[in-house]
C-alpha cells in the first residue's frame, strides 16, 4: 500500500473531437484541439514545471514557471495558456528556459521561509518540488529587505507580516508561506463557486484575503476544502496534517454523508486517518468535496462511541455491559420468546440508509428468512418513498434518470423543494458552475435558498409557494405548457401512451388549473408561473432536481408524478442534460431501497406477492417467504401501542428523532419488550432500547454505497473496527444465534448473492467494481457497463405513463390558533439528526436549531432576533431561539432539525403521503410566541435521556 498520487495535467481536458498532432521535446503527441501545451506534454509523460496551474481550474498564467519555447515563435509563452496547434515543435527544457525558471524560483524563495524541515507540508509541497526541479542552489537576492516572512525586521515590527489565521477548525492560513499563485482563489471561484477569497492589494502588497480581509470564519467561506487542496505550499493546511504529519498510504472510499456519494482518498498513517481528500476520478464529485465529507469525520473516534454491547431488563435501568455472545444469545432468546408468545408477526427490523448495501441486505434477509415475516422498513419511509412509488408508476423504475455529469449539458435546471447548496453541496457546486456558463434556473421553494441568488448566479424564476401546494403549482406549469402549445408532441407520440396523454392534457387544461386560478392559494403570481413554464418548455435541455420538499407531503407521491409528467410533456427524458433527479438525502438511501428494505418489496423492487421472485430467494435461503407485505414503521409503532408488536432490531437509524410525532414514537417504543439498537452512539431511540449493539463507521468496513445517481461505489475498510466487528458481522452473528446457517466471510460474498438474485445487479461484483471504479445499475447483460442515463431508447415500463394529479389540500391547515406554516430543512454544516456532525467541530457553524421567521410575523408577536420562542402545533410544542429573516415569506416559518434538544418532530403531525406513508414534515400549522426557555417536555425529556444513558459502573455518558 502506498500513497495514491494523482496526475495533475495542469489544465482541464478539452471536449473537442478534432485531434491535433504536435511535437514536444521530440515526441509526437496527439491531443484534442483546445488542449494546452502543458496538458499535452503531461499526456506524453513530460512534466513542465508549474506552480499556479492545476487541472481542476482554468489556466491562469501567473507563476511564469511553465514557460516553453516554440520553434518559429518568439519569446517564451506559458505552456498553460498556450493551446496546441498542428505541427508545433515545442521544447520544455532549453538552457534559456532553465535560466529563466531558476531566476523566477529565486524570486519566490527570496520571500519564503526556509523552514522546510519543520514545515507541515514537508514532503507534500509543490514549491519544494519545483525548487528541486529547476535546480535551485542559491538565492542571489538574499532574504533581507521587504518580506512577508518575518514578524520583525531587525527588531522593528514588520507591517507586511501577518499572523496565522487559525479561525477555521479544520485548516490554517499562514500568509507568511503564501506565494500568491491564486490557486485557492480560483478553486473557491471555479470549483466551489463561493467566491469567498480574493487577492487584496497589488504588487508586493498582494495577499490572499478571505472576504474583506477578514479571518476565514467571518468570511463567506463554507469550508469545502477546495482551497486547501489547491494550495501548493503549507499556506493552507489541514490542522490534522499539522498535528499528525504526512500520511504514508491512502485508500479510495466513499463518503458516508449525503446521497451525492463523493469518492475520497482516505490518507492514513498506520490506522490513523490523517485526512480525507476528494478523489479526482470519483465520477460523482470529480475531485470536489464539502465540509462534511472532507473534514467532519471526527465522530468516528469520538469519546461518546459505545464499544461494548449492553443489555438492560427495563428501560429505566442503567445499562449493563456484556459480552457479544451474551448479547446475541439474549436477543435471540427474546425474539424467540416474543414470537412464541405474541405470534410470528410481532417482531420486525429497520434497515439503515447509512450502512452498506450488504449490511442492509442482511438485515432484510434476517427479517424475511429469520423472523419469517416481511416486517422490514427503512428510513426512506420518511424521505424518498414517494419517489420510489411515483417514478415507478410513471417510468417503471424507482430511481433518478441521470448521472451527475449530466448537469454539464443542462440548459434549464428546475429545483423543487431542495436546498442543494446546504443538502447536496458538491452537486450544487457543479450546478452553479453550469449556471455561470449560462444555464437558466427555476427554483420552486417557499424559502429563498442560497441557490436562488448568490454571487454570480441568480434564478430566472423563484416561485415562493405556500408550503403544501406543490401539486397545484406543478399542474399549473403543465397547464401553461399544454394550453400554450409548448408540449413536445413528437416525443410523447413516440415514447408515451398517447391516449393517457390526451386524458391528462384535457385534465390539466381545465381553467381551474391555470396560474391565475391557483395563485389564490399557492401565493405565486401567475405571470411568474407562466414565465417559468415557457422557459422550461422552450429553453433547451430541461432537468428537474428535487428533494424532500417534494416528497414529505401528504401529496408527495402525486408531486413526484407531476414532475414525471412535466419531464415527459417537454420531452426531457433519455439523454444527457435532462431528466428527473431526486437528490437523495443519505449516502445509501438509494441502496437500502434497492436491497429490499420495504415491507412489500424484495431486492430489486419486486413485490413479495410475485411467486417467481419469492421462489428465487426461497430456493437460495431454504425457507418459505411470506407473500403478504409486512408492516411499515408507522404501522409497527401503531401495532406496538396496540400491544401486538413487541420486538424490533434497528440498525443505524434514530427513529425517535427522525420520525414524525415524537411522542407517538416514544409511546410505541416504550410498549415493546425487546428493542435492539445497533448504532455508533446511544442515540435518542436507544433511550427506549433493551439491547445496545455497538456499530462500526464507514471507515471500519468493506462494502458498497449506492448514491442518488444509482452509482454503486466501493466503501473500503481503512481501520480496524473500534467496536470489534463491522455491522454485517454483527447481523450475521445475530442470525447465527437465531439458528441460521450464514457463513459470509467477506461482504463481496454478500454482493455475489445480491447479483445472483437481483437482475439489475447481475454483473456487479467486487472484482468488476475494482475494474470499473464504479457502475450505475442496471448493470447486467443488456447494460454491461451500467446505465449512466436511463430510458434512453424508451421507458423501462414500455410507454411513459401520464397520471392525473389533482391537488388536494392537506388536512393540516392554518387557523386562528395555528396561523403560521412550519417547514423544515437542513444546513450545510450539520447532517440530519446530527448524531455524527454534532460530534465534530462542525458545531462552530451551527450550534443550535433556530426558527426562521419573517420580520413582519416577528414584530406582530413582539419577537426580537435571538429571543427564545415557543413553537406550538396541534401535536406538541417546543422552544428554540428565533432568527429573523426575509428568506421566508410572511406566514411561513422554518427550522432545521439537527439537535435533539430542539425536538422539532414533537411539533410535526402524523399526517403522511397517501401512497407511501411518508410523513408530512414540510407542512405543520403552528403558532409562535415569546417564551422564557425550554418547555416542560424538553426538560422531562432531557432528564429521561440522562437517566436512560447511565451505564452501570461508569460515569454518565455525556451526550
Amino acid at each position, binding site marked *: 500500500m502506498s500513497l495514491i498520487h494523482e496526475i495533475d495535467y495542469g489544465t482541464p481536458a478539452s471536449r473537442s473531437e478534432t485531434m491535433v498532432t504536435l511535437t514536444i521535446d521530440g515526441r509526437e503527441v496527439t491531443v484534442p484541439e483546445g488542449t494546452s501545451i502543458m496538458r499535452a506534454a503531461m499526456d506524453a509523460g513530460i512534466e513542465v514545471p508549474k506552480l499556479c496551474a492545476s487541472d481542476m481550474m482554468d489556466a491562469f498564467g501567473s507563476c511564469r514557471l511553465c514557460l516553453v519555447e516554440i520553434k518559429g515563435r518568439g519569446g517564451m509563452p506559458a505552456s498553460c495558456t498556450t493551446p496546441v496547434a498542428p505541427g508545433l515543435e515545442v521544447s520544455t527544457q532549453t538552457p534559456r528556459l532553465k535560466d529563466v525558471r531558476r531566476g523566477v524560483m529565486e524570486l519566490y524563495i527570496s520571500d519564503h521561509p526556509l523552514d522546510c524541515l519543520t514545515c507541515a507540508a514537508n514532503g507534500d509541497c509543490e514549491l519544494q518540488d519545483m525548487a528541486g526541479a529547476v535546480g535551485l542552489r542559491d538565492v542571489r537576492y538574499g532574504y533581507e529587505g521587504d518580506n512577508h516572512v518575518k514578524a520583525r525586521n531587525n527588531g522593528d515590527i514588520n507591517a507586511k507580516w501577518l499572523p496565522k489565521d487559525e479561525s477555521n477548525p479544520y485548516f490554517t492560513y499562514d500568509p507568511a508561506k503564501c506565494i500568491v499563485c491564486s490557486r485557492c482563489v480560483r478553486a473557491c471561484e471555479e470549483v466551489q463557486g463561493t467566491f469567498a477569497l480574493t487577492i487584496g492589494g497589488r504588487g508586493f502588497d498582494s495577499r490572499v484575503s478571505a*472576504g474583506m480581509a477578514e479571518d476565514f470564519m467571518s468570511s463567506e467561506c463554507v469550508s469545502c476544502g477546495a482551497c486547501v487542496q489547491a494550495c501548493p505550499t503549507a499556506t493552507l493546511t489541514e490542522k490534522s496534517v499539522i498535528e499528525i504529519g504526512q500520511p504514508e498510504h491512502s485508500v479510495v472510499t466513499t463518503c458516508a454523508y449525503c446521497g451525492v456519494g463523493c469518492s475520497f482518498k482516505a490518507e492514513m498513517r498506520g490506522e490513523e486517518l490523517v485526512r480525507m481528500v476528494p478523489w479526482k476520478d470519483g465520477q460523482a464529485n470529480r475531485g470536489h468535496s464539502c465540509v462534511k465529507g472532507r473534514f467532519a469525520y471526527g465522530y468516528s473516534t469520538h469519546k461518546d462511541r459505545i464499544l461494548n454491547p449492553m443489555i438492560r431488563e427495563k428501560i429505566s435501568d442503567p445499562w449493563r455491559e456484556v459480552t457479544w455472545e451474551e448479547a446475541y444469545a439474549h436477543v435471540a432468546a427474546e425474539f424467540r420468546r416474543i414470537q412464541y408468545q405474541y405470534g410470528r408477526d410481532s417482531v420486525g427490523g429497520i434497515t439503515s440508509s447509512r450502512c452498506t448495501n450488504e449490511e442492509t441486505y442482511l438485515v432484510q434477509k434476517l427479517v424475511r428468512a429469520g423472523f419469517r415475516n416481511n416486517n422490514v422498513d427503512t428510513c426512506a419511509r420518511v424521505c424518498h418513498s414517494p419517489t420510489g412509488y411515483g417514478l415507478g408508476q410513471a417510468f417503471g423504475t424507482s430511481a433518478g434518470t441521470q448521472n451527475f455529469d449530466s448537469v454539464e449539458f443542462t440548459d434549464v435546471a428546475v429545483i423543487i423543494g431542495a436546498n442543494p447548496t446546504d443538502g447536496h453541496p458538491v452537486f450544487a457546486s457543479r450546478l452553479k458552475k453550469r449556471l455561470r456558463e449560462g444555464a437558466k434556473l427555476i427554483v420552486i421553494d417557499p424559502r429563498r435558498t442560497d441557490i436562488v441568488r448568490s454571487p454570480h448566479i441568480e434564478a430566472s424564476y423563484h416561485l415562493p409557494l405556500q408550503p403544501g401546494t406543490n401539486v397545484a403549482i406543478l399542474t399549473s406549469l403543465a397547464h401553461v405548457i399544454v394550453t400554450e402549445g409548448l408540449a413536445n408532441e413528437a416525443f410523447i407520440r413516440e415514447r408515451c401512451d398517447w391516449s393517457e396523454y390526451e386524458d391528462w392534457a384535457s385534465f390539466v387544461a381545465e381553467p381551474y388549473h391555470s396560474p391565475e386560478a391557483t395563485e389564490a392559494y399557492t401565493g405565486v403570481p401567475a405571470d411568474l408561473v407562466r414565465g417559468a413554464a415557457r422557459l422550461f418548455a422552450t429553453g433547451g435541455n430541461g432537468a428537474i432536481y428535487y428533494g424532500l420538499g417534494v416528497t414529505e407531503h401528504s401529496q408527495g407521491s402525486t408531486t413526484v408524478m407531476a414532475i414525471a409528467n412535466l419531464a415527459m410533456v417537454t420531452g426531457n427524458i433519455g439523454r444527457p442534460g435532462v431528466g428527473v433527479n431526486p437528490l437523495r438525502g443519505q449516502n445509501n438511501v438509494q441502496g437500502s431501497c434497492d436491497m429490499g428494505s420495504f415491507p412489500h418489496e424484495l431486492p430489486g423492487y419486486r413485490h413479495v406477492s410475485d411467486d417467481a421472485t419469492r421462489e428465487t430467494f426461497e430456493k437460495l435461503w431454504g425457507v418459505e417467504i411470506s407473500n403478504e407485505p409486512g408492516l411499515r414503521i408507522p404501522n409497527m409503532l401503531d401495532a406496538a401501542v396496540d400491544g401486538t408488536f413487541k420486538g424490533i432490531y434497528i440498525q443505524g437509524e434514530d427513529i425517535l428523532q427522525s420520525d414524525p410525532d415524537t411522542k407517538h414514537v416514544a409511546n410505541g417504543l416504550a410498549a415493546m419488550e425487546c428493542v435492539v439498537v445497533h448504532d455508533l452512539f446511544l442515540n435518542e431511540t436507544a433511550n427506549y432500547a433493551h439491547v445496545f449493539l455497538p456499530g462500526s463507521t464507514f471507515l471500519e468496513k468493506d462494502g458498497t454505497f449506492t448514491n442518488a445517481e444509482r452509482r454503486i461505489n466501493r466503501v473500503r475498510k481503512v481501520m480496524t473496527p473500534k467496536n470489534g466487528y463491522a455491522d454485517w458481522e454483527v447481523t450475521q452473528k445475530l442470525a447465527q444465534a437465531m439458528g441460521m446457517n450464514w457463513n459470509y466471510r467477506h461482504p463481496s460474498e454478500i454482493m455475489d448473492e445480491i447479483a445472483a438474485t437481483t437482475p439489475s445487479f447481475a454483473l456487479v461484483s467486487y472484482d468488476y467494481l475494482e475494474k470499473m471504479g464504479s457502475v450505475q445499475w442496471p448493470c447486467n447483460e443488456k447494460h454491461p457497463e451500467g446505465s449512466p442515463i436511463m430510458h434512453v431508447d424508451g421507458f423501462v415500463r414500455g410507454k411513459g405513463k401520464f397520471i392525473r394529479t389533482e391537488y388536494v389540500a392537506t388536512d393540516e391547515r392554518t387557523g386562528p390558533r395555528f396561523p403560521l406554516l412550519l417547514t423544515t430543512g437542513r444546513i450545510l454544516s450539520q447532517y440530519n439528526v446530527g448524531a455524527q456532525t454534532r460530534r465534530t467541530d462542525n458545531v462552530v457553524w451551527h450550534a443550535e436549531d433556530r426558527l426562521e421567521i419573517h420580520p413582519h410575523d416577528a414584530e406582530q408577536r413582539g419577537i426580537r432576533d435571538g429571543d427564545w420562542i415557543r413553537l406550538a402545533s396541534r401535536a406538541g410544542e417546543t422552544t428554540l431561539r428565533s432568527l429573523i429573516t426575509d428568506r421566508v415569506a410572511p406566514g411561513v416559518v422554518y427550522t432545521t432539525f439537527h439537535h435533539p434538544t430542539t425536538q422539532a418532530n414533537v411539533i410535526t403531525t402524523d399526517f403522511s403521503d397517501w401512497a407511501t406513508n411518508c410523513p408530512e414534515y414540510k407542512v405543520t400549522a403552528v403558532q409562535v410566541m415569546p417564551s422564557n426557555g425550554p418547555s416542560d417536555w424538553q426538560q422531562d425529556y432531557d432528564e429521561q435521556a440522562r437517566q436512560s444513558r447511565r451505564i452501570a459502573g461508569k460515569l454518565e455518558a455525556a451526550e
Partner: protein
Amino acid sequence: MNIHQPRGDVSGRTLAIIEELKGLEGPLLPIFHEIQHEFGYVPQDCLPVIARELNLSRAEVYGVFSFYHDFREHPAGRHVLKLCRAEACQSMGGDQLAERAKHLLGIDFHETTPDGAVTLEPVYCLGLCSCAPSAMFDGEVHARVDAGDLDALVAEARR
C-alpha cells in the same frame, strides 16, 4: 470634497449610486469613483452593499477596491499632496523632496497632518518624466518642483 457625511446617509446614498450605475457594463469601478466623489473616500460599509446589489461576493468587491491605491479607505485631509517616487523623479532629486515634505508636514507617506489639512502620498509616475521631479496638489500637476515650490505648496495647504 472632504465633507464628512453623517453615517446614516452612507447606505442610502450608496444604494442610489449603485442603482444609477449598475446598468453599465462593468459597473464596479464607476460605482467606486462615484462613491469616493460623494464621500471623499469609500466607506467600508459600502462594500457589502455593493456586493449584494451587484450579486458579487464581498471578497471580490474588496479585491477590486484594494487594488487601486486611489480609492481611499479613510477620509483624506482637506488637501492631498502626491509626490512622484518613480525612477525619473528619483534621479532628479525626488528623494530629497520627499524627505523635505515629510519634515515640513511632520508626517510620513499615507498620513494626514493632525489638523486635517494635508495628506501626503507617494505616486508612481505622473507621466511628466521629462520635467521631473513632479508632484500633484489637489489634482493639479506641478513640474520641476524644487524646495521653494514645495514650501509654497505646503504653505498654501496649511493656510
